[in-house]
């Protein structure tokens, strides 16, 4: 635990973490200092002046809280008339040229100007002159659409491209009330994290062309999730909604802060993986190549599995720990070989030194922990003797295995997404994807994380664990799988898999000793 210091805010003593600026320090104990330009990942800029506070120690009357370090014994005042007037004045200033198009603005409902107006301003406009006209719906590239009139010039987006991605596409050009954010002609946003400027923007100036006008923010259910786009396992919000007479579908992913994994950001590619949760889904169960209802498809597969002389299980590196464990148990019972062969999920050289990883699978690290072989040799030799291949969601076409190379073996596919393996399957069981299921995964850095069910479909897909149970597996549900994992897997014996902390659990070197990074 970091050192704490005591300071007083509005005459009330609070204990906060040492070494932080005032905004962050007192926010941790539930006191809000309004701020527009400050963002913890971008540092203090001090341009908005909304966070001005009084410090009663004889120093100059007002200081920006974002640039002031919290120190022992500090006496901070937020509730004086002077501060309240400054907050009103700053809000009035920000709103002079701000278009009142909240009814058609994407940010409405999660907009700092709306919130602060209600909390700190509430005054009528005194402006009797025409508003300054600037550019609307300017395409900044990379799916970012900019509205210069809504912009409050906090420079968060500019600082993001200069300090974080170091690509510097954005700048604030011109001066006075004509100042605006713009790209240099012919050099649009072209970094792989561009859409973070949409989240960073405290107002509706930066919008995502993908999300624009699709949903009002207040209709969205914001569930916690983990991105399965690559092995980083970035923490996300899954924003989904069930419209009247419609199914529950996902409208966007947004980054969720987790200092241990992804900080405040996610990559654009990961952000767009929400699409495959809505589309590209397997829906129709198959039994012996014929369309069937779910129950009969599972029963048919169970009968086929019981008859199989040499069943072979193929596991996807996107399966959760619980699913892999259940698959292993079922395999032991059916005397099946298990392979996690999935080299095609790795796109050599695609990753960078930040969030994007070469490995596009979310849980490959678990293979090593659970002892699932992923070599091509084992896969090929097991495939040769197999008369039934049960594929748990692994898109083998990525790894160069086409359906003809599967030989005479019959194929069963238990997975969420359509791919050529599913096309070739005689038995097909569509199951819940990660946004509709709960599970644990280990990321590339050995951080064990948990995700919970976010989306609830009108007709839910069965989860993979329940399908495995119906096929003869011994684990009742995800809780049972966790208990069993804790009892049987060396790495988890000392851990409480039922209670993984929200920020994830960094497994020690010995626990993931044989995991190759």
């Amino acid at each position, binding site marked *: 635990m970091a050192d704490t210091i005591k300071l007083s805010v509005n005459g009330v003593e609070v204990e906060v973490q040492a070494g932080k600026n005032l905004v962050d320090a007192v926010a941790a104990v539930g006191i809000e200092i309004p701020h527009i330009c400050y963002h913890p990942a971008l540092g203090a800029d001090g341009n908005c002046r909304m966070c001005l506070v009084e410090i009663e120690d004889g120093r100059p009357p007002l200081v920006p809280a974002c640039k002031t370090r919290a120190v022992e014994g500090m006496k901070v005042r937020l509730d004086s008339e002077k501060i309240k007037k400054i907050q009103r004045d700053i809000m009035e200033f920000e709103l002079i040229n701000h278009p009142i198009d909240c009814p058609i603005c994407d940010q409405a409902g999660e907009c700092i100007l709306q919130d602060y107006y209600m909390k700190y301003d509430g005054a009528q406009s005194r402006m009797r002159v025409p508003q300054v006209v600037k550019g609307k719906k300017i395409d900044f590239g990379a799916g970012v659409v900019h509205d210069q009139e809504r912009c409050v010039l906090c420079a968060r987006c500019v600082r993001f491209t200069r300090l974080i991605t170091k690509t*510097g596409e954005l*700048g604030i*050009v*011109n001066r006075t009330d004509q100042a605006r954010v*713009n790209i240099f*002609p012919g050099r649009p946003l072209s970094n792989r994290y561009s859409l973070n400027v949409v989240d960073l923007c405290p107002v509706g100036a930066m919008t995502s062309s993908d999300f624009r006008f699709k949903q009002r923010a207040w209709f969205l259910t914001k569930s916690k999730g983990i991105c399965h786009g690559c092995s980083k396992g970035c923490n996300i919000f899954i924003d989904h909604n069930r419209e009247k007479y419609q199914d529950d579908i996902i409208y966007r992913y947004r980054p969720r802060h987790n200092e241990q994994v992804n900080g405040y950001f996610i990559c654009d590619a990961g952000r767009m993986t929400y699409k495959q949760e809505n589309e590209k889904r397997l829906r129709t169960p198959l039994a012996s190549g014929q369309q069937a209802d779910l129950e009969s498809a599972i029963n048919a597969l169970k009968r086929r599995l019981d008859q199989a002389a040499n069943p072979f299980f193929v596991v996807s590196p996107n399966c959760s720990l619980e699913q892999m464990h259940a698959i292993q148990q079922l395999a032991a019972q059916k005397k099946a070989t298990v392979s996690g062969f999935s080299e095609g999920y790795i796109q050599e050289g695609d990753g960078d030194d930040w969030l994007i990883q070469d490995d596009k699978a979310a849980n490959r690290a678990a293979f090593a922990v659970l002892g699932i072989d992923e070599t091509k040799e084992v896969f090929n030799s097991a495939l040769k003797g197999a008369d039934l291949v049960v594929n748990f969601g692994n898109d083998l076409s990525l790894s160069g295995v086409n359906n003809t190379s599967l030989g005479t073996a019959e194929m069963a596919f238990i997975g969420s997404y359509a791919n050529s393996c599913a096309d070739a399957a005689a038995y097909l069981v569509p199951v819940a994807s990660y946004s509709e299921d709960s599970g644990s995964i280990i990321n590339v850095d050995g951080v064990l994380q948990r995700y919970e069910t976010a989306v609830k479909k009108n007709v839910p897909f069965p989860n993979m664990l329940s399908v495995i149970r119906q096929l003869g597996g011994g684990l009742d549900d995800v809780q049972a799988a966790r208990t069993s994992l804790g009892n049987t897997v060396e790495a988890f014996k000392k851990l409480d898999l039922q209670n993984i902390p929200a920020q994830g659990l960094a497994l020690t070197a010995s626990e993931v000793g044989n995991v190759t990074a």
Partner: protein
Amino acid sequence: MSNRAELIESGKPFAFDAERDAEFERLAKRYPNRDSLILPSLWLIQDQQGWISVESIAYVADRIGTFASQVYEVATFYTMYHLRPMGKYHICVCRTLSCYLLGKQQIVDYLQQELGIRPGQISEDGRFSLEEVECLGHCGSAPVVQINGEFHENMTVDKFKELLSTLK
């Protein structure tokens, strides 16, 4: 000046000529932080081609090794950088206090009538452009006018008549 946020393309590539190139290299040694080269580089562009185009900003940004957006910011912030071609003779009339009190308006009125352009405009033949600027720092000899960087002090309408005849 109208919308300074809009840059104009010249339609042809830009590079420093030998003289400005040498000057750029001389300046580059002077600044520990290369971003400091933005202001003098923009002056060099303006010196060379009279105004600052999209191509020239991209050129100096790459040359300095900074973001084009940052050079764009600087070029649009300072009003003494011309973001469009100016007249052959660019006339700046000081409008700050001393010049104002000593009759800059008569000079501006005269020029408007004589050249047919208002401040911020360029004459149709492209020979003259007129601009009212803030203090030029020659208050002791107000009103003062600057033509292509050259100062003309204690200006009167009569003196301007004479001056214009030499320019036309």
